Every structure is written in C-alpha cells, then in structure tokens.
C-alpha cells in the first residue's frame, strides 16, 4: 500500500480519485468485521427466539389442555403440546449429555460419530458430483447443440423420487459394482445418491458461469491466439467461480440431505439417517432423542454450508463485484 506522502504530491486526477476510493475500501473492511459479529449475534438471538416461541406455545397449549373440559373446541383444534408431542427444549438439549441405555457414550458423542459417517458419504458424493457436474457443464458449453438436446434430460433426472432409486442403487452396488478395483461398500451407494443430488446444480450453474465471460473478454483471448485450454483456465473457469460457488452451497446441503435420505431408504447402518429412523421408531419412549438427532442433522447441514462459504472466501475473495468499465 502506497504511503499517504507519495500520494499527496500527485497531480494526476485519476490517482487522487483513487485515494478516495481507497479510503472507502478501508471503511468497507472495518464494516466486514462488524458485519460478522452482527450476523453471529443475530443468529444466536434468532435461535433463542425460536426456542422461546416453542416453549411459549407449548406453555399456552398446556394451559388450554389443563382446562380441556371448559374449552373443548379450542383444545381439540390446536395441535397437542404435551411432552410426548413437544418435548421441552431443556429435555432436548439435556438429551445430548445423557447416556442412552445399552450405550457407553453420551448421546452427543454418538451423534458426532454418526454425523462423521454421514459426512463421509456426503463428501464423497459431493466431490464426484462436482466432477460430473463440471464435466457436463463443459460439454454443454462446448457444443451448443448438446445443450438443447441434453439439458431437458438432466432436468428430468431430478424429478425421479430419491426414495425410489435409493434401494435400486444399493442393490446394484452389492451385486453389480464389482468392476471397481476396491470393494464396494453400502455407504458408497449412499454417496451415489448424494452425487445424484449434487451434480445438477453444479452442471446448471457451471454452464452459466462458463458462458458468463463478456464478448470482449473472449475476443481478447482470441486476439492473443490463445488455445482452447488457455481460454478455459485463464478466462472461463475463473469467471465461472462465483456461479459455481453459488451452486456448491446448494449442492453441499443437498448432499447431506441425499446422504440422510439415502441411508433411510437404503437401510445403511452407521449414519445420522439411520439414527433418525431408529429414534422415530422409539419415539414413544424417548421423543426428545428424535428432536436431538434431527438437530444434529441440521447442524451438519449448516456446517458444510459454512465450509463452502469459507472456501469461497479463500478462492474468490471479494474481487467479484464491479469493474464493469
């Protein structure tokens, strides 16, 4: 950064104009820190409000339940708020610290290990989906005809219900996927399901991103007689990154959803999906455990979203705006 002294004695109007911009940028950076703090506080307050609302509504419903004989109509219209239907917030969070029967670990540790298992499935699926999605985007960007012909099928693929294909993929995995040099395991089938949900946003947004460079940018590369791969690596891929990361945020959370749903419908043991299914079966004896395990899945989803956002900051930085002249 140039010192203020060297900048003060410039007679260049453009440089002087730049100084003003520079100051604005500094203020922007300060604002960024304030923004992160404010976001965190807002998030915590929001969570608190949500818990308060839940508890308040529960108390309200309970009060009505207590005088059920007086207000029969209202009591039967409102959803039930007893501890079986709405376990208290304290019980749900308290559950994390408890040791369920037949286990030697506290619940939060069990959830953590199962979240790691699900995360592995989701991550493997996400990475494969990223590669496949980008390959499709590149092919579609390269051959316009293909875009018209293939894109409808890519879209149609997303209308097939996940629950229908999950068991098929697991069965195929056990019987047919021995072409791979490694032994096919059931969690890999769940990854395939995550891939299935991941590749789509990557392909669609990747295509938009690859097509995003302005005509004069493409002409510039052509004027340098740049090769196809030079144009790809130096112009099209970097230009596609903002679009791609928008897709990756969707894809990351979708891969978690895919993994959880995949585990449930494919009957794969060891992850959060299976945990949620089991707690649903045992609901009557421990409703707070189902709520706690669903919270665990939500936290996992938020976690992968934040990871993608952090990688985006690292890779793209904040130079994606403006510079339109």
């Amino acid at each position: 950064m140039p010192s203020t002294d060297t900048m003060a004695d410039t007679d260049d109007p453009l440089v002087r104009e730049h100084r003003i911009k520079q100051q604005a940028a500094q203020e922007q950076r300060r604002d960024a820190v304030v923004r992160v703090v404010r976001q965190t506080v807002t998030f915590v307050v929001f969570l608190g409000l949500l818990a308060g609302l839940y508890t308040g509504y529960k108390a309200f419903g309970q009060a009505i339940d207590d005088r059920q004989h007086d207000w029969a109509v209202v009591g039967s219209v409102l959803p039930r708020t007893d501890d079986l239907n709405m376990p208290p917030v304290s019980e749900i969070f308290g559950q994390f610290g408890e040791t369920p029967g037949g286990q030697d670990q506290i619940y939060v540790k069990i959830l953590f290990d199962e979240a790691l298992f699900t995360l592995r499935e989701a991550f493997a699926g996400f990475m494969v989906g990223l590669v496949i999605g980008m390959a499709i985007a590149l092919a579609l960007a390269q051959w316009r005809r293909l875009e018209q012909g293939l894109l409808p099928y890519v879209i149609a693929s997303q209308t097939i219900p996940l629950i229908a294909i999950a068991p098929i993929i697991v069965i195929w995995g056990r019987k047919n996927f021995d072409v791979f040099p490694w032994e096919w395991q059931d969690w890999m089938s769940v990854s395939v399901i995550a891939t299935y949900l991941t590749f789509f946003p990557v392909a669609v947004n990747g295509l938009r991103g690859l097509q995003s460079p302005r005509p004069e940018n493409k002409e510039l590369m052509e004027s340098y007689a740049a090769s196809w791969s030079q144009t790809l690596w130096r112009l099209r891929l970097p230009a596609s990154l903002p679009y791609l990361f928008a897709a990756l945020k969707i894809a990351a959370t979708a891969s978690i959803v895919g993994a959880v749903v995949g585990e449930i419908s494919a009957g794969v043991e060891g992850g959060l999906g299976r945990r949620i299914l089991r707690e649903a079966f045992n609901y009557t004896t421990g409703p707070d455990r189902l709520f706690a395990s669903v919270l665990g899945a939500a936290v996992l989803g938020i976690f992968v979203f934040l990871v993608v956002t952090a990688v985006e900051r690292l890779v793209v930085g904040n130079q994606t705006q403006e510079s339109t002249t």
Partner: protein
Amino acid sequence: MSEVPSMDEAVSSGQGAPPLVIDIRGATKVFNPGKSNQVEALDEIDLSVGPGEFITLIGPSGCGKSTLLRLVASLIPPSTGTVQVNAKPAEQARLDRDYGMAFQTAGLFDWRTVTKNIELPLELMGWSRGARRRRAAEMLELVKLSEFANHHPSELSGGMQQRVAIARALSFSPSLLLMDEPFGALDEMTREHMQDELLRIWKETETTVVFVTHSIPEAVYLSTQVVVMSPRPGGIASVIDVDLGDRNASTRDDPAFFTKVTEVRTALRKVEE
C-alpha cells in the same frame, strides 16, 4: 534486361515507400449470407496504413467501423477481398501476435491483480515469470500506475482501468495497436486526459494505432489521418489528413484544430444524407 523488374520491386518496396502495416483490398463483409437476416456490413474497402500512423475510423453507428477493426484483427474473416497486416494475411498476423487490442470496456479480469492482468498475454506467449514481472513493471511505469501494481481492477477508476488495458495491449510490444472506442465510457475530463496519455505512449513506443471513435474532436485531436465511413453498407467516404504538429494544451483552442473538426463534420454530414 531481366534484372529490371526486380530492380523495380526493390525500389517500390524499399526506401521509397516503407512497408505497409495494414493493407486492405476490396474487402467486403456480409453477415448471415443467404439468410433472411442478411446484413451487408462492409462494401469494397480499400485502406492502407503506414508505420507510425495514428488513424481514426469515424462514422455514424452501424457504418461498420468496429467490423472493419475486427477484420484487421482477424477476429472475423472478410467475405471477399484481402486483409494484410505486416505484409502477411491478417490471420497469420494474429497468430504471430502482431497487434494488441483494447476495447470499449477495459475488459480486465477481476480475479487478477493489475500486474497479473498486464502479464496475461505474456503468460500465453510462454514468457518466464521473471521476464513477465519486469515487463509488467515497465508497462505500469509507462501508464503511470506503478503504485497500483497489486491492486485489483475493481479498486481502480474507469480511466485507470483503461490505462491498464492499454498497458496490457502493449505489453508484448506489438507493432500495431487496435482500439475500439476505448474512451467511450469515460467522462469528458478523464477522456481528454487519457487522449494526452495515449499520444504520449504512441510517441514513446512508435506503435501504429487504429482507433475507432464517434467523437469528432477526439478523432481530430489524436490522428494523423481520419477515415470517414458511410453507413449501409459500410464504406470509406473520405480520408482526411490531419497535420497539427505536436499536441498540447493549446491545440484544442487552435483555429487549425477547429478547421479540421469542421472538415470532418462536413464529411460526416454528407455521409448521413
């Protein structure tokens, strides 16, 4: 006797007339030929530009001045006729990287720093990292932006971005600089400042410049020759020589300057009719 023709050739292409940088003969351009949206963009263009000239293409919108520039750049091929740059087909000149180009928008890559933007063509040409750094530093000095070497384009004003674009276009020392309304998006004050900068760079680098504009004063102020173009289909209506000597602050108030502006304006009026 048999030596005579070769002597002739030696004279014509030797000291007498310096080799042409641009030589366009009978070039036409038809877009979408044979289709319902067929457009005759250029008709029978003949144009030659010698080394060190600064020529401006001016004309009403739709007269094909940008198309003509792109023929020279070999970004689009002519439908008929020939376009030669540095005595070879324009296509070959492009492959040999004989020219640099600047557009109406600076077209800098947002994700690269100013230095890395200037290095872009050098990277494509396989220059070593050290050589690239040195040249980028020289170019930044030329456009007086050394202290912004590591900034990103979005941190610079429009005029500064255009200076970076010019530095990028000239970084590999091409003999020809093609500019497509590069100052069109700038405000008047910045624009005049940039014109002076461009003339200084032109003199320092001894590059030949082809400059597309729709501003009459800009054309007269910058050029050694103003090429007035007519629309539909685009053609060259007249070529006006401008000899105002070295430009400086008083040039814009010089009666000779206004005479030339009027001459170009009159030629443009005739074209519009």
